[in-house]
């Protein structure tokens, strides 16, 4: 049976993980390669590396990092942050990334999704959507959720799928950081209208929240950062908990 996926997200700045981690068993908690490999060992189904600086200067650092991660990690991983051209994607995939995630650049120029899907195949193009509820509607936001657009989230999710996105990474800026649960209602509405997988992000604070996002939220994957970094939830424990509650999980 196809399993639901648990995905830790690592924020990267100048080639190092930021936001801190609480892994005493790591030699260097800031080393994304070591942390990624550890998550893979603990049963993570995929990894997402998000370059939060994403400046031109850092591109080379990022490509080198991707190469190191690919050498050491034996599960699929996605790289996102500041990707805006075929050249950017090509460099990251050639370095060994399995997928890339695009966000603001797709909002600025939606044709980019078509171009990337045609060039590299939909399977490696994730479109990240940051959404916030404002005045009765869900609106797409850019710039890390700070800037509102005139695009409604549900319509945008439909559009990115029709343009060739392989998966959607949906982050609720309302839920993000609250630890009070994923945005299950919106996630469910988008998942029900989509034939591509939805990765839900933002709001994870407990194991039950993951159960809810897979049942009520109809998500195909759940993504979180700090609760894994600070060991508030251990991935292997989370997967056992979910499997016991009847959610299909990869456990070995």
């Amino acid at each position, binding site marked *: 049976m196809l399993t639901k996926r648990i995905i830790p997200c690592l924020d990267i700045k100048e080639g190092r993980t930021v936001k801190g981690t609480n892994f005493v068993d790591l030699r260097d908690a800031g080393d994304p390669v070591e942390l990624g490999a550890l998550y893979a060992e603990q049963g993570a189904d995929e990894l997402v590396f998000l370059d939060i600086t994403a400046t031109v200067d850092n591109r080379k650092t990022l490509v080198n990092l991707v190469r190191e991660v690919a050498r050491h990690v034996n599960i699929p991983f996605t790289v996102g942050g500041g990707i805006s051209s075929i050249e950017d994607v090509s460099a990251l995939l050639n370095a060994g990334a*399995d997928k890339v995630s695009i966000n603001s650049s797709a909002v600025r120029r939606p044709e980019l999704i078509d171009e990337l899907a045609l060039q590299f195949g939909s399977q490696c193009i994730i479109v990240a959507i940051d959404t916030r509820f404002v005045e009765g509607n869900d609106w797409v936001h850019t710039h890390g959720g700070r800037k509102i657009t005139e695009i409604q989230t549900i319509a945008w999710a439909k559009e990115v799928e029709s343009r060739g996105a*392989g998966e959607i990474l949906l982050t609720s800026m309302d839920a993000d950081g609250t630890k009070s649960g994923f945005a299950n209602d919106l996630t469910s509405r988008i998942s029900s209208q989509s034939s591509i997988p939805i990765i839900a992000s933002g709001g994870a604070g407990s194991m039950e929240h993951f159960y809810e996002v897979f049942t009520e939220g109809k998500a195909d994957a759940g993504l979180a950062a700090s609760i894994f970094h600070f060991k508030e939830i251990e991935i292997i424990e989370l997967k056992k908990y979910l499997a016991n509650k009847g959610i299909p999980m*990869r456990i070995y």
Partner: protein
Amino acid sequence: MEIAIIKYNAGNVQSVMYALDRIGMKYQWTDDEKVIQSADKVIFPGVGEASTAMAYLREKGLDQLIPSLKQPVLATCIGMQLLCKDSEENNTTCMGVFDVPVKRFVSADLKIPHVGWNSIQASGENVLMEGLKKEEYVYFVHSFYAPINTYTSAICDYAQPFSAMLQKDNFYAAQFHAEISGVAGQKIIQNFLAL
């Protein structure tokens, strides 16, 4: 041991190379007929679209070479589909090592493509799954599949049971991405290299 990875216009070969690096194996990424022919093991990986890939293989004469190989060959993902008879993906005639058609997933309620970790079960004797559990999880990304047939050596279920692995003589094939399928995937690659 000489390992040849067949070079053609289908992507994501880098992950395969790194998987071999992790287990300390050397390889050549090549479309040179002589190198491929004389290798001890041949890997035919890839992610891509069937008709574009077949057109390239024909242009290079690799469509004749690959089915004639006598050493163990491991084909993965689109590589496996290209070894079948034909594919519904743009009605492509493939190499026909496995006399099996490749079909498009159709489902009213399931998401297509089939993306993520799914379990496979060995069917009959499957030397590549030796040392693994009867059921293992591996990573899939695909919209087309080979139905269950006489060459099926592992079964997966999505929309309906389909061939996760095929085997015939020296040809071994996997629909999933062994190179990024964790410990189980690594074991499958090691078993192939130990043949």
